[in-house]
């Protein structure tokens, strides 16, 4: 029986879609059968980040309204044959789907997939209600900024009200140099405020922008962000993985040339 994981944050722009794409791809790399569902109806992005936009024929709303079968709407990833995407509709809005319908859809997909990962839209309205309806556990994404942490706190409260079985935290876009100088909250500071289990810390990385623009998630590559995402995936599957040392010193040459930037 598969597990339904919702990736949510409350605030926009903290990296929900990037996290969904990377965690989904990473789990597929670990030989799990994975489907990603974009529930951001009207503002779909996940297909672009995955580089699958040009393959869309049917979407989530078509499935819910019965215009096609689930199988017809699932897009097979171009890199991993055990990874699928159910894209969102662009010309509709959040009210096209009801929470009960999402729950039914998730229950149907559970039989077929190991992990169903839902990309939740920003906000706490209908889109959020749809996204969490069928979820077994949640990954809350936040950045180390007071505004994002405030919204994450609100979301965790709502998830508790929905009786979410398991809620884990990802601190995204952290910059160790700023943490060291005291200009940025550390992951410990964030965890202290939110008091939920920390499942991953992802450093700010220019590579993410390149990966997004190319439609190729960077999970699993040699960059710190790629390693951090891979570790999150392994922790999601239940493995114990120590946290990366993000403050590790750069090599002599990197230090020498890195300072010029």
């Amino acid at each position, binding site marked *: 029986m598969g597990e339904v994981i919702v990736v949510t944050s409350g605030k926009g722009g903290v990296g929900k879609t990037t996290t969904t794409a990377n965690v989904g791809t990473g789990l597929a790399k670990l030989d799990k059968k994975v489907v990603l569902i974009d529930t951001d109806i009207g503002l*779909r992005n996940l297909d*672009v980040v995955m580089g699958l*936009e*040009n*393959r869309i*024929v049917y979407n989530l709303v078509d499935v819910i309204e019965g215009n096609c079968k689930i199988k017809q709407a699932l897009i097979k990833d171009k890199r991993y044959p055990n990874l699928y995407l159910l894209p969102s509709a*662009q*010309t509709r809005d959040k009210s096209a789907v009801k929470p009960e319908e999402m729950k039914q859809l998730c229950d149907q997909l559970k039989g077929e997939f190991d992990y169903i990962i839902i990309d939740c839209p920003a906000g706490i309205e209908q889109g959020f209600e749809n996204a969490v309806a069928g979820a077994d556990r949640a990954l809350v994404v936040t950045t180390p900024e007071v505004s994002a942490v405030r919204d994450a706190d609100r979301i965790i409260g709502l998830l508790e009200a929905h009786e979410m079985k398991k809620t884990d935290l990802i601190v995204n876009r952290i910059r160790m140099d700023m943490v060291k100088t005291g200009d940025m909250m550390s992951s410990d500071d964030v965890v202290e405020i939110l008091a939920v289990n920390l499942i991953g810390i992802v450093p700010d990385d220019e590579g993410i922008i390149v990966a997004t623009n190319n439609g190729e998630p960077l999970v699993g590559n040699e960059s710190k962000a790629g390693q951090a995402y891979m570790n999150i995936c392994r922790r999601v599957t239940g493995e114990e993985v120590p946290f990366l040392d993000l403050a590790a010193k750069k090599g002599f040459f990197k230090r020498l040339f890195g300072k010029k930037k």
Partner: protein
Amino acid sequence: MAASVMIKGTKNGITLVLDENEEYDVLKEKVAKKFAESAKFLGNAKTALAFEGKKLSEEQKDEMIKIITDNTSLEIVCLLDNSDEADEKFAAALLKKAQEAQAVNSKIYKGNLRSGQSIESDNGIVVLGDVNPGASLISKGNIIVLGSLRGTAWAGVGGNANCFIVCSDMMPVQIRIADIIARSPDNPDRSGAKEMRIAYLENGQICISPLSKDIINSLVI
């Protein structure tokens, strides 16, 4: 006793069967009555007409058409002899008429079409502006974009394989003509200069090429 006037519906139009032994004036009245009775059932379709049975002169045929259009909301778009290939001709004539109407009644949209916006039309679509990714054009006829096509365009919805898509910068996410789908390459080559291009169906595949004179001449509109 068989009726001296019968209306037969074929796949593509109406065949009017007239008793050879009946006087023309009597037939006229019966035709008028028959069509008046079935006006509601026949609706306001555009259709082709053929005669069977009694031989009619050209004037008499014209008179019959007038009687039919007076008594119903039908529009007779063409008249055909009821020969063996009548059905085929019906279909071709109707398709041509439909295409002409689609081209003439094209919807013209001014401005850029942005993500999430879409235009749907039973006729052709002309956009004076860009079509961005996430926007879609859906037409039963042809699509012309005087700007960049970066979104999705679907021409010939319903299966018309003669439909085409023309735009001044062809960079679509996806193109569909009739029931054939083509998607953009995963690593698009942007080195070529912007030029007028056309997408059309050939041997069940979507082809994209510069809009040359030869291609324009081969288009069916």
